[in-house]
């Protein structure tokens, strides 16, 4: 695991919890460049986009998270809810 990558993910969690969703997206985009095949990056992106009501982007992000980890329950729940809307 890349230490910088882990820091970025942690930072994105922090931004999401402090309701700074745009900032979260910025750091997640950086994290994505370091490690493309990490479901958590896309899950957090989904959460941030969904919180900003950018539903199309949120759906795409959850789908990517599920592609990497089909067992990602939370991502599936969010995606199902968004598809229903």
């Amino acid at each position, binding site marked *: 695991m890349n230490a910088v990558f882990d820091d970025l993910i942690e930072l994105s*969690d922090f931004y*999401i*919890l402090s*309701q*700074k*969703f*745009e900032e979260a997206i910025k750091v997640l985009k950086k994290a994505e460049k370091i490690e493309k095949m990490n479901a*958590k990056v896309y*899950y*957090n992106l989904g*959460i941030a986009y*969904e*919180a*900003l*009501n950018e539903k199309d982007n949120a759906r795409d992000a959850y789908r990517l998270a599920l592609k990497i980890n089909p067992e990602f329950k*939370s991502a599936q729940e969010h995606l199902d809810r968004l598809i229903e809307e």
Partner: protein
Amino acid sequence: MRQFVVIGLGRFGSSIARALSEKNFEVLAIDENEERVKEMEGIVSQAVVLDATDEKALRELGVSDFDTAIVSMGETVEDSIMITLALKEMGLKQVIVKCKSDLHSKILKKAGADRIIFPEREMAERLAESLASPKIFDFIELSKTHGIIEMIAPKKLINKTLTELKLRTKYGVSVIAIKRKLPYSKKDGTTDFKEEIIIGPGPDDELISGDVLILLGSNVDLDKIEKL
């Protein structure tokens, strides 16, 4: 408690009768067609097989005691006109008539209809409106001039308190509620959020990115704020 009489139980009439009953209003449902009436039994307060163009029969049924009538007669505009005339003569306060064309609507107005509705057209206009401005989720019409909208807080308003924004003075709209996604940490280490609704937000409440505002105002003012 308001009482409604619904005349004509086609798709529109039966839906409205059902919806009003679900809201616990007293509803009398009338149609000539026995099957349609049977379907409404047990759903509305009373369902009756009757030719609604028969004024005497309507009077005997006590229709004149109702506040509002909804006339939904489908294709037959003559029947709608006759029924509207009869209902207004009986003294009903509000007669709402479903209509398909502008010409018919003029005649129905002359006959005394208080409100003419074009369900298909209204639905289409609503849909077109929501497609044209995807930011807006919903619009509730309160009167011809005022309504409530639900919209994503425009970027210009973010990170400011309601006092700073002065939405009422500047735009003539009131914030009834704010829908906000509240993030939290889950046990498995992932973050998630719950939706919180702040009803009647205070002057110190600050708007944050992603907030959905529920605003009340005149259509003109709401239109202005949508364009921010």
